[in-house]
């Protein structure tokens, strides 16, 4: 039995604790915001937060979340109001959007860590999040905009 908190709600899982969080979230809890791309920590579309830090859900077993806080894109804000979500909407970052939940979770984690990242910080933090549509320049611009929206990183 694994006990964890997902988007503020306590959950108990009595299935195989080795199941990657991604499948627990998507297939058991029905939270489909975190996506599946590679299953090998290579693309970043499954990115979620574990105690506020970006993690690849596809290679993180449910057991690793025992007693911890899992946040998915669905739980980042109740109404798409997180500065990163606002910036993404305003700058039309998404094309197909498939990678963007992962991008947003990664970016939100970066800003928690470094409220005013440089381009180099952004590139370093986002390098593992692939976008087949090639929205990288807008992603970078949106992160800077999110910094402004959250008060200039002050």
């Amino acid at each position, binding site marked *: 039995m694994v006990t964890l908190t997902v988007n503020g709600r306590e959950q108990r899982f009595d299935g*195989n604790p080795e*199941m*990657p969080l991604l*499948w627990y979230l*998507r*297939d*058991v809890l*029905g*939270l*489909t*915001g*975190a*996506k*599946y*791309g590679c*299953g090998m920590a290579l*693309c970043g*579309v499954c990115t979620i937060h574990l105690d506020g830090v970006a993690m690849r859900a596809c290679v993180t077993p449910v057991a690793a979340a025992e007693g911890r806080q899992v946040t*998915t*894109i*669905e739980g*980042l*804000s109740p*109404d*798409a109001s997180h500065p990163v*979500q606002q910036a*993404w*909407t*305003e700058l*039309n970052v*998404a*094309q*197909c*959007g*498939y*990678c*963007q*939940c992962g991008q*947003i979770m990664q970016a939100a984690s970066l800003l928690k860590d470094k409220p005013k990242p440089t381009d180099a910080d952004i590139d370093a933090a986002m390098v593992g999040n*692939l*976008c*087949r*549509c090639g929205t990288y320049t807008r992603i970078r611009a949106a992160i800077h905009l999110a910094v402004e929206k959250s008060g200039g990183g002050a």
Partner: protein
Amino acid sequence: MTPDGLDAPRGAAAAPAEAHDADAQPILNVSRRAFLLGLGAGALVLAVAPALAADPPRRYGGDGMPGGLKDDPRLFVAIAADGTVTILNHRAEMGQGVRTSVPMIIADELEADWARVQVRQAPGDEARYGNQNTDGSRSIRHNFEPLRRAGAAARQMLIAAAAASWKVPAAEIVAEQHVLTHAGSGRRAGYGEFAAAAAALSVPSGEALKLKQPAQFRYIGKGRIGGIDNRDIVSGKAQYGIDTRVPGMVYAVVARPPVYGGRVKHHDAAAALKVPGVLKVVPLDGAPIPSAFFPLGGVAVVAENTWAAIEGRKALQIEWDHGPNAGYDSQRYRAALETASRAEGQLVYERGATYAELARAERKIAVEYYVPHLAHAPMEPPARSCAPMPTAPRPGPACRRRRPRATCWPAC
């Protein structure tokens, strides 16, 4: 499917089964809004009329494709009594933004206030909506004019309805941003007020149809409108093929032949079936090559969740017959391409004296580019959800490739 089952997933034309009723209302997946279906107060939606008998049929471009092009506003636009404009997008979204651009074109000609526009996804039904084969950058190239005509016709029908009611010439009425105005008499009305009356009018076509001048465009080409799905995407609500969830569903993954054209010689499912959660292992025949758009076959593992299915697939023992491509060697293939590309080509078209000029050139630059032979690899793995008929909880359009046996999302 969204929880209420009314909208197709973003990438697809999927919809409730009534989509196929011959006499269904033209705007389908809006049944929760009775007022849009012409049941209650005015909606600019009535039964679908026969196609516009305007121009003689042309057989090139979109007109030459299955289903052709449609410009009947009653297929694409519904206006509720409260003025809400619902526009149907009939092309598949895959990141090109067509769910925004198709409605934008109609809304611009209609002079609709974008803030009061809702977008719905059309089911797959080419007889009704015209061609829906979304590829080749054709959505806007082919549909720009027809969609403009649809929007302009709807605008003119609203104007005509107001003209009849106010007893003033239609030419004196201006439609702007959801408001009809007659300067002479000072009359004003919202679109919703005349939606029902407009729906009863005939659709203008030919000379009578007045498109905007491009300088009058409000949305088209202005970069003002954000992606219609932005908010859903950034909050994780946008539904992709892989996100379909139906009560009681099971999940499958397929072990595909490692070589194109290969087939299963022998498989042993015993170990896979021991993986907790695995329900069944099903060998699949593949289409003979060249397989075009038909499946490659392999061995499917069906399980209670995706992870169990993936683990089950890892446990499969499969002996493959690699088929006619067993000897394929990418180095040799590359060499063959390079040899062919350096050999003298076959001249198809020549203008000017290219070769003579090149021969005299003082400085020549030669570059070779090589792109390896790779499978298309989208971020989202191809996914399909099906329910056997007739127990589908929310029937979508049946697979039409063969005899209808299943309901599928996205639609076939």
